[in-house]
């Protein structure tokens, strides 16, 4: 079992039944090229040393694993450690993957990168890496998200990136991905699509996970050094699922470590009110396996297979599908998934701000709320690592309206 858990992908990019490659034919050969380039980079010492160097000297790794003493005391349950991805350059874990794929674009000789963004953190990370490596960059962003994450739009433009507003559909992340894919299919010969999460067609879910797995590798070493034992629980928020898989992956074969992914429960269980793909047990309806934007996974949709609109206060968690590896981990019961409401996330953000002096991103606040809701099931000798995937600067408009 553990061997399977270590490397669940097949040649066709399957995690059990999930994953695969469902794209227009024009993208198939570019996906094969990307897969080959990525495979070669894995064993290319100069690529790996450049990647490590940029993670360390440009992004600021390793990030601290901080004992959250006042939060632990306040909640009165298990000892809680925070993996401080919020301290990275650009303010979230997204930079890990952007550096990896940016270097890959250079290696493949692609002078132009495109990216989608929801909360803007991946857009900012892509814009940053593009500027640093001298690549042209275009970021697609729903106009609804541009309004609620205006700071990140300004940062991307400051970095020389062209931000293209997307007016179609719900004007959020899913629609930005459609538009990025239309750009990619048109300019595929010159352009690398720097996808920001463990979504899309193979090899993206595997490649993005591998670039994010540094989070869990560091956290595992750090907790063993600090506590001389493995954690009992990992908590992380799950939009597409890149920060959570990044934390979880290194612990997959540690059977004693429970993994909990927290989704956006929005304002209720009805279709269109939430973005919870794996929380049917809590009454969040509408998710079934299906194909969206290149991959087979759990998708929020209506009876006719049309993709549902979603709601979350967090622009980074409102995607209607979840990364295929998460779908598989959920089926295997290796990880658990549950959802928390907009309000619970806001309350958690305030709590963390005032107990630890850390203003979290709204996305990461969902993970904190998920931990709080699970407290009755946790013991005081449990040991928690929570991935604080991003900082809250971008969410100050939302927070300040609620103070």
């Amino acid at each position, binding site marked *: 079992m553990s061997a399977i858990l270590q490397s669940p992908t097949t040649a066709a990019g399957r995690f059990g039944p999930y994953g*695969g490659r469902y*794209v227009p*034919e*024009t*993208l198939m050969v*570019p996906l094969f090229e990307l897969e080959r380039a990525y495979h070669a980079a894995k064993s290319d010492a100069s690529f790996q040393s450049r990647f490590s160097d940029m993670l360390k000297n440009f992004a600021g790794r390793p990030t601290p694993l901080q004992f959250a003493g006042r939060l632990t005391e306040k909640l009165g349950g298990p000892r809680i450690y925070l993996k401080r991805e919020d301290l990275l350059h650009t303010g979230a874990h997204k930079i890990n993957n952007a550096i990896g794929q940016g270097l890959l674009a250079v290696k493949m000789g692609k002078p132009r990168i495109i990216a989608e963004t929801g909360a803007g953190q991946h857009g900012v990370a892509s814009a940053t890496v593009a500027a640093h490596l001298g690549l042209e960059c275009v970021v697609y962003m729903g106009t609804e998200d541009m309004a609620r994450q205006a700071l990140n739009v300004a940062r991307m433009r400051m970095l020389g990136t062209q931000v293209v507003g997307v007016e179609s559909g719900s004007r959020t992340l899913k629609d930005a991905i*459609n538009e990025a894919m239309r750009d990619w299919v*048109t300019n595929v010969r010159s352009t690398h699509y720097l996808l920001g999460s463990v979504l899309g067609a193979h090899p993206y879910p595997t490649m993005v996970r591998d670039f994010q797995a540094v989070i869990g590798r560091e956290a595992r070493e750090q907790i063993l050094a600090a506590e001389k034992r493995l954690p009992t629980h990992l908590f992380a928020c799950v939009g597409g699922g890149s920060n959570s898989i990044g934390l979880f992956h290194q612990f997959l074969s540690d059977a004693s470590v429970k993994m909990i992914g927290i989704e956006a429960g929005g304002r209720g269980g009805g279709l269109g009110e939430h973005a919870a793909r794996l929380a049917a047990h809590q009454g969040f309806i509408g998710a079934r396996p299906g*194909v*969206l934007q290149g991959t087979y996974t759990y998708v929020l949709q209506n009876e006719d297979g049309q993709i549902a609109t979603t709601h979350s206060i967090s622009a980074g968690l409102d995607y209607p599908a979840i990364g295929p590896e998460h779908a598989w981990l959920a089926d295997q019961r290796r990880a658990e998934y549950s959802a928390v409401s907009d309000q619970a996330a806001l309350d958690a953000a305030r709590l963390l701000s005032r107990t630890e002096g850390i203003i979290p991103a709204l996305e990461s606040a969902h993970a904190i709320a998920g931990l709080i809701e699970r407290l009755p099931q946790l013991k005081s000798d449990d040991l928690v690592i929570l991935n604080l995937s991003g900082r809250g600067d971008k969410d100050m408009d939302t927070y300040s309206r609620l103070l």
Partner: protein
Amino acid sequence: MSFVSPNSTRISKRFAELRASGELGIVAYITAGDPTIDATLKFVLALAEAGADVIELGVPFSDPLADGPTIQRASERALKAGTTLAGVLELVRRIRQSGSPFSEVPLVLFSYYNPILQMGLEKFASAAASAGADGALATDLTPEESEEYRRILATHRLDTIFLGAPTSTDERLAKIAACSSGFLYLISRTGVTGAKDALPDDLPALLRRARGVTHLPVAVGFGISLPGHVSVLGGLADAAVVGSALVSEIEKAKSVDGAAAALAARVRSLKEAARHGLSRREVAP
């Protein structure tokens, strides 16, 4: 050496007739349910009467990532009108039972994969076949992921049409053709659907590559809108696919009858170019 597939439906028969007469076929795409299913019924019969050789009925999808703005808007209108895949299959039945002399026009269902998958492959194939559809094409389904789909559709004698692209290697084109029946749909350019002024310069080379790997009829689509395009394709391809240009006519028209007349006029001028080559007055503006 026969290019008529064992599934042989109205599609392969029509292409065989076209080859016999040396004429370029016109494949007409419209989005079903835009603006209503009743209107689409009229449009299909008008297109067939005007000479469309095959009609592709687009199944609207919420996230049409391979489509340009024209067909995106058509999908939105069709979904707003309540169009579903089941409704499109019912439309196929109505076309076949319409009593029109053009009710036997070859019909291909052109969909994204998820609506088909959610209906269930077996249920979709049996409903499509019994309604009278001739084949299906799923934009985001490639040979690699389609083994079961092909097996089930073949059981119901439906043609499976796959897309070949300019980025496809010869090896892939051969694989795509081997998975296709009825015809091979060749994408003229890298990009999304939508009318363009000129055909890409490397299109003849792409067509030669496709001809080198298959005896199936080859239809070329994406960016084709004008009689001039059709004239250029004569002798190179078996058919030209016209989509966004037709959908634009529906979008612009003031009434359903007006749209039907405009669609018919478009197809007639394309057919004219296909039959007789291009005359001076038909040169594109």
